[in-house]
């Protein structure tokens, strides 16, 4: 019979497991290993301190409910976009029925609505988040997407849906329905993410049109942001950040750095070099604020330390001016 391992590494590991399982408290464990207690105590205390600092690792319920369908729709979409060389798949995957259940439900809903009259369908087109008919509107959109098999058409539809989400945000803020704005923002973020992915699949022309669309949206969202109360401003700020990130995502990958081993969190993390990606991002932000791409690039490398959201905030503040006007700034004469 082999003797139990009494090395500090083994005992520490065992003690951690017991604490994780709630089988023993720290003093109880230390009492079991009196000869190692002095060494074990600070290590276990450190482990517990680190564990207390972690954020919740449980995914949000909303995310769990919606993400699976989103991933499968994108997977199907990309496979269709790749054409006949795609990985083998059944013509009608069995699980699609389950994963697309909401879309099918919506299709049934459409049929039911059709029986009840087209008035409901028409009325739903004007529905906003929080309205009773909004679910009908979104269901119809999903049906339209599910029945679209051409990647370019799909990207076009998604582009229209992103515009629609933006219009909803504008309408809600005009009506002062701040409580529904968060839902609208979530819908906007999801739509933008889907559009970015679809634009890649759509090929030539896709990414550029998304870039232009996002640039236009940032301007509109900033206008909306100026009109709503403070708590809602934060949600809109996140949507703007999402738009900026989408611009960065749809462009060709950032210029690689020489240091292949740089890791986030290090003291010296991956300073990017300037290439096509950065130049085009600079052009897009310059368009929004009426400055030159060279100016935005200088800000990106200087004050903003390679953060595009910082560049946007910088020029937004600058273009507001003392009276909120949009005089052209000259930050780098």
């Amino acid at each position, binding site marked *: 019979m082999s003797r139990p391992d009494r090395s500090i590494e083994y005992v520490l590991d065992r003690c951690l497991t017991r604490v994780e399982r709630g089988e023993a408290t720290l003093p109880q464990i230390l009492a079991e290993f009196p000869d190692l207690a002095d060494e074990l105590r600070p*290590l276990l205390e450190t482990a517990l*301190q680190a564990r*207390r600092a972690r954020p919740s*690792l449980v995914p949000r319920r909303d995310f769990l409910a919606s993400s699976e369908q*989103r991933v499968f729709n994108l997977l199907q979409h990309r496979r269709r976009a790749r054409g006949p060389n795609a990985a083998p798949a059944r013509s009608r995957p069995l699980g699609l029925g*389950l994963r697309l259940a909401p879309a099918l439900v919506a299709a049934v809903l459409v049929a039911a609505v059709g029986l009840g009259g087209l008035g409901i369908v028409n009325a739903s087109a004007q529905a906003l988040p929080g309205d009773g008919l909004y679910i009908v509107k979104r269901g119809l959109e999903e049906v339209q997407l599910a029945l679209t098999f051409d990647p370019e058409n799909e990207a076009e539809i998604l582009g229209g849906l992103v515009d629609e989400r933006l219009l909803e945000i504008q309408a809600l803020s005009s009506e002062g329905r701040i409580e529904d704005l968060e839902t609208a923002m979530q819908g906007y973020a999801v739509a933008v993410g889907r559009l970015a992915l679809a634009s890649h699949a759509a090929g030539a022309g896709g990414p550029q049109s998304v870039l232009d669309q996002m640039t236009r949206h940032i301007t509109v969202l900033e206008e909306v942001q100026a009109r709503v109360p403070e708590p809602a401003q934060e949600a809109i700020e996140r949507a703007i950040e999402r738009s900026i990130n989408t611009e960065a995502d749809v462009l060709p990958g950032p210029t690689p750095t020489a240091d292949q081993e740089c*890791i986030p*969190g290090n003291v010296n993390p991956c300073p990017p070099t300037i290439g096509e990606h950065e130049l085009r991002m600079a052009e897009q932000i310059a368009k929004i604020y009426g400055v030159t791409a060279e100016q935005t690039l200088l800000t990106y490398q200087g004050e903003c330390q390679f953060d*595009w959201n910082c560049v946007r905030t910088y020029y937004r503040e600058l273009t507001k001016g003392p009276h909120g006007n949009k005089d052209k700034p000259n930050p780098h004469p």
Partner: protein
Amino acid sequence: MRRDVQPASASDGDLISEAQAGNSEAFGELYRRYLPQIYGYIRLRVGMERDAEDLAEMVFLKSFESIHRYEDRGVPFSAFLYKVARHAVVDSYRSRQALLPLEEAEKHPDEAPGTESSVIELEQKAEALRALSRLPERYQEVIRLRVLMDLPTEAVASWLGSTPTAVRVLLHRALKALRRSLETRDVKA
């Protein structure tokens, strides 16, 4: 002929074979089985919940797209997903400067603290995460997996491509280093 697979009780191997043949039920079961773990890992690497959600979806999308290349050579599917997740996080930091590291996000928690003790508690949490971020990457990673995610040592070993003994040794060193990192900060403060 294809076997009938009951997704919830099927082994990973069976589900992967089915997924490789294009069975979406199998994809779905793998997704539900591993999303919490992979999301949890990513959440420990990025400051914003939304970024973690986006990245988790991207990881599964990429993994499922390349699942036909996956071969079970004694490496569990979760380890395959972990590698994709780890690369996705690093790639995101390279390409999206707006991605906030966890230790930075904890400086500005979403909820405003109500009492002095909660302020102190928040600061202690933020300091623990900052101390962790100052460690060598290998130390950070073993603490994330073994301590923060509560993964069993054997699982950590398979994810890191190591052995349980090596993981125990690494964890011991990593916790000592974290302790020093916290103490150094305390002395400076």
